[in-house]
């Protein structure tokens, strides 16, 4: 799937620290990522209603929303999205714990930029592998479970479109 690797990674970055979002986005774009910025939880959620993302980097503590709420809402809208939880807080409280369980990985601020890039790539690969597996499983189910060849063609076309769009 060389085609997919060349496709820019779609990244959502959500943090109330505007300076961080601005400059981090700048650097990530320079590395070829397709970056969407959000300065609050609400902005992040609304961005996800319009665009599909491979990975979201979400600050755990934002004034309007708990990071965990943001992660939950993003995952509700885009089940395949991978989240990197960003935090200045090492506190093992319940929100931290819940976030950690839902997130692909957590990153303690200040983070190493190269590590962040690596993790974003890893998360994207992880997402794609997972989706490919899922697509194949569902296709298998379709082949073995559906009756008419016409249906198989229709349904598989639907499935292909669903996974390609994501």
């Amino acid at each position, binding site marked *: 799937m060389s085609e997919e690797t060349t496709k820019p990674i779609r990244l959502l970055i959500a943090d109330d*620290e505007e*300076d*961080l979002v601005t*400059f*981090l986005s*700048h*650097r990530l774009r*320079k590395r070829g990522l397709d970056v969407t910025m959000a300065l609050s939880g609400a902005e992040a959620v609304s961005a996800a209603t319009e665009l599909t993302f491979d990975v979201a980097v979400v600050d755990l503590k934002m004034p309007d929303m708990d990071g965990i709420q943001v992660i939950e809402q993003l995952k509700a809208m885009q089940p395949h999205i991978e989240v990197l939880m960003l935090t*200045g*807080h*090492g*506190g*093992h*409280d319940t929100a931290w*714990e819940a976030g950690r369980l839902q997130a692909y990985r957590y990153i*303690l*601020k*200040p*983070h*190493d*930029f*190269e*590590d962040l890039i690596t993790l974003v790539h890893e998360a994207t690969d992880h997402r794609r592998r997972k989706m490919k597996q899922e697509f194949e499983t569902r296709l298998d189910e379709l082949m073995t479970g559906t009756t008419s060849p016409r249906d198989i063609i229709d349904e598989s076309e639907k499935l292909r479109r669903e996974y390609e769009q994501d």
Partner: protein
Amino acid sequence: MLAGLANRSRLLRLKIVAVIDLGPGTDSPARQHALNIGISLISSHVTDLSSLERLDLIVLTAEMPEIVTQVRDALPGDLPIMGPNSHDVIHGLIRLVDINRSLRSDSRRLKETRLRLNQFIETAPLAIYVKDVDLRYRKMNKHALNMLGIREELALGKRDRALFPEGGARWLQKIEQETLRTRQTLHGSGVLPIQGQEMHVHVTLFPLIENGLIEGLYGLVEDTTELYESERKLHRVDEQLSETQKYLREVLENSRDIIFLTDPEGNLLSFNSGAETVLGYSRDEVVGTPAHRLCATPGAFGHLFAEALRDGHAMSYESEFRTKDLENVIVNISLTLIDGPDGKPLELVCICRDITTRLRLKQDLIRSERLAAVGQMASGVAHEINNPLAVIDTIAGLVEEMLADEGKVLPSETRGILTRAMDRLHHQVRRVTTITHSMLGFVRTPEAGMVKMNVGELLDECLNLLGTEIRRSRTEVRRIFALDLPSFVSDPMLLEQVFVNLIKNAVDAVAEAPGRKGVIEILTTLDDNHIRISIEDNGVGIPKADQEKIFNLFHTTKPAGKGTGLGLSIVHDILHRLGGNVRVASEPGHWTRFVVEIPLVPPETPLPDPSVSI
């Protein structure tokens, strides 16, 4: 002859009245005669006779029958009266009087003695009886009758078998027979069944001998029941006392407290097994030596001792004893003075309780509390610093990249300086990061999550988290994990902090040791009830002097800015809470090895965690 008679009558001091017809002063021949024979003339007139008593003889000097009548009327009794011409019989009379008087006096004395004896027998607080040779009761005093609860007429003439139940007084009869046989005074003690109760008595038996013949015996019976009872009670009390003493001795002896006695000079008189156990000395080694030698601070003990001698009691909540192995044991100590019967100080009891462990736990708790407080503040501060730090680092990185890509337009010198500046900026940010990240390590989860976990997975996770550092320092990590290590229940979050800290330290240590390839070896083994994780590096090592202190709060061996002195203190604290422990061994300049032990079964009651969630 007359002179002899006169002497005799004078010796007798006869009271003789001569009644004469001529009245006082008349010197009649009879009167003269009376005087001649030594009869003292007490009265010479009949009218005085009635007032006279205890006359022995009346001598009439004239034939005066009417006077005789008068005298006989006035003085009743058989008083001899002599006529005027009976000089010859005076001698005989005097002898008669002599005998009569002596008899009268003897019988009077006898009567008095009898009376007194009877009185004594009746009133004596002893039961007294008289038995004849057939051992029949002849007499019993009031006390004896009362004692038996019987009337005299029912007892007299009876033998013991009529008064006591079958065989009840056999022992007494034996002694009585012996008294009759030997005619000696004998004693005996025994029990008499009297009025349904057992009476303890002491009996003294006297033989009753008259005219050389044994007539019977006297018995004196003393009720000793009360005496016996009190003796028995005394005996019982004595027994109880000795049992109590034995019990107390055992309690003292087997107490785990240190208990010893000293004389008023402070020399040890005893030393219980608790003292032997705690202090390591045997009784024989120390008894007789001064107690203050056991103390880490003999002076303080001396003061306490003096106080106890003065006030009777002295206490100290934290005194230090020194064991035979020269370890200090912290005790609370109580000294009590015991006075002897003469009121002078006899000995001092010293009871000490080893509170070393309790005190250590208390210190651990204080330490935990302090850590928690520091943790709260530190994590708050770290959070506030981490956010701007992230911005600074991002911008520095951006500038660095732009210098690399588009900085060719700048003079090369300017570009060089800026590049180097950006590199230093990164370096400084990392320096601050080291501090803030280790400060965050203090924050704890409020409900420590005890779950089933696998130590290998946890260590892999930690190595993953530290991937950047490990790669950057080009350190080789060797994992030697025991196969089939059981999973165990502990808190993976807390343990993650432990291992991240220890591995990070190892990475730093090898980075500081130039000229050789850094190697970290992580070894897991199973040991009885513990999982043991050893983390060894070939880094700079830890100076011997620091090895003891590295777990202390704010103690750091790292260069300024590199370490905070928090990490190992957190490690120690966490393991302590999870029932495990951590030890360090190091050869300065060559290697360091941390060994962590985690119990397979967590402690029943986790140590109190005073931390507050942030």
